[in-house]
């Protein structure tokens, strides 16, 4: 078997060496409960948390006091949406989001229906971009929240966040953005972009799984989501995953340090992979925006073939990727994101997402293109379509 190529970095990332190093001592040396400020072990844990909080805050131009650690992107999304809804119900019951959000946003909005909330799901164009005019027209007097993801996890499309923020601000509506995929790949500046709430997750940027954060702009009215102890300044209860938080902080520190270099490299790889596939495989459709996309995201649909079969053959070649096919998720329909961009079901079933990392080389890209060429042509031979 060839070298293993992990090209599913949007699903999760390997934890960076420096991050593991940072986390180590919080298991059995500095294992105190950060709420225990009266002995050294507890104080050390607290320091670790505050150091990480500063890293995260600085990276998105927030104040440290505006960062709250959570169990991950999903908890942050749930907190943002339910917290705002339940705290502002007296003002209105209307939420605006998009058709291409992560399920952590979509299913949360659906759940809120049972509490009397209504959601407008904005359309996207063929590139996955929302329409700002449609957004404006969707705003009602009772709109209390706009939740639009910063960058999409499947097709990588980056939304015009600053303009959305401006529109929300003009109307006095709270603006949440799911930046789980954007973190590390796009410049986030919560002040400039008028963001009120923002969700991130460590495991997408070389940090550990099961830890995330929420930025809550000072003054935003939001209910607590996990009630209990006074952790996180009384806003998010539960003994902090100190080791995970320390790791998250380190991952963000590394992401901030190498931001341009890292992303320039990824864009070079991305361009090479997109061009390579277009040049070598007929009947493909690039999903997402041609340029306004995450540096590490390459998503194509390959007509006449189905995604799971491609993934299995890729796995045999040591390549890990993901697909928008229903077959890979056990659901009935292919990716709601791909369908929202106007792809027909058949084409959507044949989509493959590669998400790159620093560890990938240009030679690896050549290998991926050649492997894909062979796999697609083989599966097309088996396929009854397009004959």
């Amino acid at each position: 078997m060839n070298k293993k190529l992990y090209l599913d970095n949007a699903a999760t990332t390997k934890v960076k060496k420096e991050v593991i190093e940072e986390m180590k001592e919080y298991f059995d040396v500095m294992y105190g409960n950060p709420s225990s400020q009266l002995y050294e072990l507890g104080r050390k844990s607290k320091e670790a948390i505050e150091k990480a909080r500063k890293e995260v805050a600085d990276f998105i131009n927030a104040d440290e006091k505006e960062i709250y650690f959570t169990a991950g992107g999903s908890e942050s999304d749930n907190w943002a949406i339910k917290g705002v809804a339940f705290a502002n119900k007296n003002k209105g019951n209307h939420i605006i989001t998009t058709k291409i959000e992560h399920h952590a946003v979509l299913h949360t909005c659906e759940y809120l229906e049972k509490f009397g909330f209504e959601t407008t799901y904005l359309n996207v164009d063929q590139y996955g971009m929302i329409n700002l005019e449609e957004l404006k027209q969707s705003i009602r007097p009772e709109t209390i929240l706009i939740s639009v993801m910063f960058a999409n996890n499947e097709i990588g499309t980056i939304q015009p966040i600053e303009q959305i923020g401006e529109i929300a601000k003009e109307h006095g509506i709270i603006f949440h953005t799911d930046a789980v995929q954007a973190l590390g790949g796009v410049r986030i500046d919560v002040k400039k972009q008028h963001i009120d709430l923002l969700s991130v997750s460590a495991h997408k940027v070389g940090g550990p799984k099961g830890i995330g954060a929420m930025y809550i702009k000072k003054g935003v009215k939001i209910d607590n989501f996990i009630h209990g102890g006074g952790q996180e300044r009384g806003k998010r209860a539960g003994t902090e995953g100190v080791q995970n938080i320390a790791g998250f902080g380190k991952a963000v520190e590394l992401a901030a340090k190498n931001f341009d270099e890292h992303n320039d490299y990824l864009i070079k790889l991305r361009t090479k992979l997109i061009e390579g596939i277009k040049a070598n495989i007929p009947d493909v459709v690039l999903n997402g925006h041609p340029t306004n996309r995450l540096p590490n995201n390459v998503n194509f649909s390959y007509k006449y073939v189905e995604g799971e079969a491609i993934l299995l053959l890729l796995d045999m070649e040591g390549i890990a990727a993901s697909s928008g096919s229903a077959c890979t998720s056990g659901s009935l329909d292919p990716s709601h994101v791909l369908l929202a961009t106007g792809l027909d079901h058949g084409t959507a079933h044949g989509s493959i997402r590669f998400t790159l990392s620093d560890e990938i080389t240009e030679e690896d890209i050549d290998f991926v293109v050649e492997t894909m060429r062979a796999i697609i042509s083989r599966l097309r031979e088996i396929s009854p379509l397009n004959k």
Partner: protein
Amino acid sequence: MYTETVMDHFRNPRNVGHMENADGVGQVGNVKCGDIMKIYLKINDEIIEDVKFETFGCGSAIASSSMATELIKGKSIDEAVELSNKAVIEALGGLPPVKVHCSVLAEQAIKSALYDYAQKTNKTIKGLENFNPEDEEEFGCH
């Protein structure tokens, strides 16, 4: 998630391809659901002399097609008509629950091809009395 037999039949599918002048052709599934199976039969003296398939679908769909064609190749029509999806699953050493429909599709595709043969040759095949190739369209996906 797949057995070795499934992976073997997916990797090296038997009886892949198109068949000119087939005696019976059956196609089931649809693009929307992400699974289409097409079966071609060459029948001589009530014996399935040759069988080919083309499949658009996931790994287990391809493996199910491959296994199903192997199971009926050289068999009599009566035997082929009795091929159940359970037999396909068994021969594959099992399928994950969410993939069971692939074996159903394979069974249906073969029955469809036999039905087509019966139609063309004006025969009736025991066991296909109640079979209607249009039915499976109503299943919806999975």
